[in-house]
């Protein structure tokens, strides 16, 4: 039936397109076709992205832990929660987020050199 994964996405995007088309029998409200049409386009774009990707490398490395990722989560969360509370909260959050992102970059570089 469907041999390649992204084809399933294209089929789905096509179905969404059909339901957008049916909308026009009843209404031309931009929210309706904009939201649903946007979803169809996004799905097709993701399918295209995957169809064009090169195949996976024969050997992949996986990490065991990632403390940096937890820091990104914590920093991001504090930064977002800080928005209604003020700079005293969101600035430290942003700081932790930046530290975490730097850590992730370091982890990815270490992975690359270990290959």
């Amino acid at each position, binding site marked *: 039936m469907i041999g*390649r994964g992204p084809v399933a996405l294209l089929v789905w995007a096509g179905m969404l397109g059909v*339901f957008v088309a*049916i909308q026009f029998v009843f209404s031309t409200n931009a929210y309706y076709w904009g939201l649903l049409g946007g979803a169809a386009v996004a799905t097709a774009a993701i399918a295209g992205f995957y169809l064009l990707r090169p195949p996976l490398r024969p*050997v992949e490395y*996986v990490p065991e832990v990632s403390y940096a990722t937890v820091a990104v*989560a914590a920093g991001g969360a504090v930064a977002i929660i800080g928005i*209604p509370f003020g700079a005293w909260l969101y600035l430290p959050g942003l700081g932790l987020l930046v530290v975490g992102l730097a850590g992730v970059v370091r982890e990815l570089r270490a992975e690359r050199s270990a290959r």
Partner: protein
Amino acid sequence: MAGLSVTSVALERPRPSGLVGWLASTDHKRIGLLQMGGTLVFFIASGVVALLMRSELAHPGMQIVSRQSYNELFTVHGSGMVYLVVTPLALAVGIYLVPLQIGAAEIAWPRLTLLGLWLFVAGGVAIYFGFAVDHGAARSGWFATYPLSNSAHSSGKGQDLWICGVFLAVLGNTIQSGTLLATILRKRAPGMTMARVPPFTWTMLVTVLLAITSFPVLLGTMAALEWSRLYGGVFDGQYGPVAYQLLFWFYGHPVVYVMFFPFVGMVAEAVSAFSGRRFFGYKGFTLSMLLFAALSMSVWAHHMFATGRINNEYFSLTSTMLIVPAGLEYFAVIGTMIGGAIVFSTAMLFSIGFLLLFLIGGLTGIIVASPPLDYHLTDSYFYVAHFHYALFAGSLFGFFAGVFYWFPKVTGVLLRESLGKLQFALMFIGANVTFFPMLILGYEGMPRRVATYPSKFTALNVVETVGGFVIALGVLVFLVNVVLSLRRRIPAGDNPFDGPGLEWWTVSPPPRLNFTSLPPIRSYAPLYDLRNDPK
């Protein structure tokens, strides 16, 4: 025997032991289990909140909490169940199972998957922290209708914490949906074409498509809502409040299918194993899953039929069309039972319970998909019954079917069947005693989200409260079962229930990289193929 052609090798660093090794782990199995644990904590919290609500509603008038507290309670109960329990749970079961079902050593982008977990946890903490701040927790309902949720009508940081918490949880969900999609598309073992992907993984595929295309709209809407609270504007002015609802429900409808499809997949797999045969009607099932998901993206304004501000006909048409894929899904699952050799394990009982009770959720959904009927029934207890039948007696029953099926794979030990059957009985009876009377109350005119009611509604409210406590007892029995089974261990072996999928090929519990070998993959039931034709 086909071998793995993509090998994954762990970085040369011993796995940190203890808590740290778990909390920052990039092993999809640990992330999935931690996330399930997190949703269990939030489930118990939301459940306690529900028992408080039901206790208050057992009698007209206010006996236990104030009106303001009650409004906080139902907001946190609904928000908790949608954002912090069933949605993250649906993704967590996928995060655990999908790589195993497709013969992969690891999930794609494990760090992003881990990020999603902690964003979800942070979001939950933020929402509940609202109880500790001035003016209390959020109290504008789980969909935060505008202008009720603006700074004038919902003052206090509790509402802001809710918005941030919802944003974080849904952001985490969206990121994990991306990694699951990448996993399904790119990490299938050789020989596993899309037509050989097991039913559960297919349901996860459509689930993540829904999430990726609709959750970002919620993120934008929450950001706009918070902006509105801080600086004004956005949803004020003509059509603003309508626009808020159109944007919210574009997420708000697909999310209920995100909360449903993976559990349908779990039921499909459990029914297959406990009927002793491969899943029936696979082609029809996968096509109708795609249609089901596409339709669920197209129906969202049916939550707005009584507004008088949207095109009722289109959304009523697409909503009623859901009958076709729903019916075909039932066709496949029941078709698997017919001609089988059915074993009435707890998983099978929960699957049958799902089939019968989700049906009530679905049929009442078709009723409210008709605007002239919805004009009376929406925003009443009829509606509350509808979604609880679908989500509790549907999705969560499907979840328990999956738990009783896959627990031995995850832990290496069996759950107690006797306690499982007791749990099923309590939950089946409890669900009907709690939610069936709500159909009557709603029809008779009891609105939802009310802290008290006219005395004519008392008798059925008392019945519902009793039912709520019966459900709670069922949850308790489940927790006892889990603790007991992990303490007094009955080893399960690799494939205690003779399941068809690749996850049953490996040891229980699976090692770090899941598989040391793979069997040939010739269909969506590779282990049955091997048994029938061991070439």
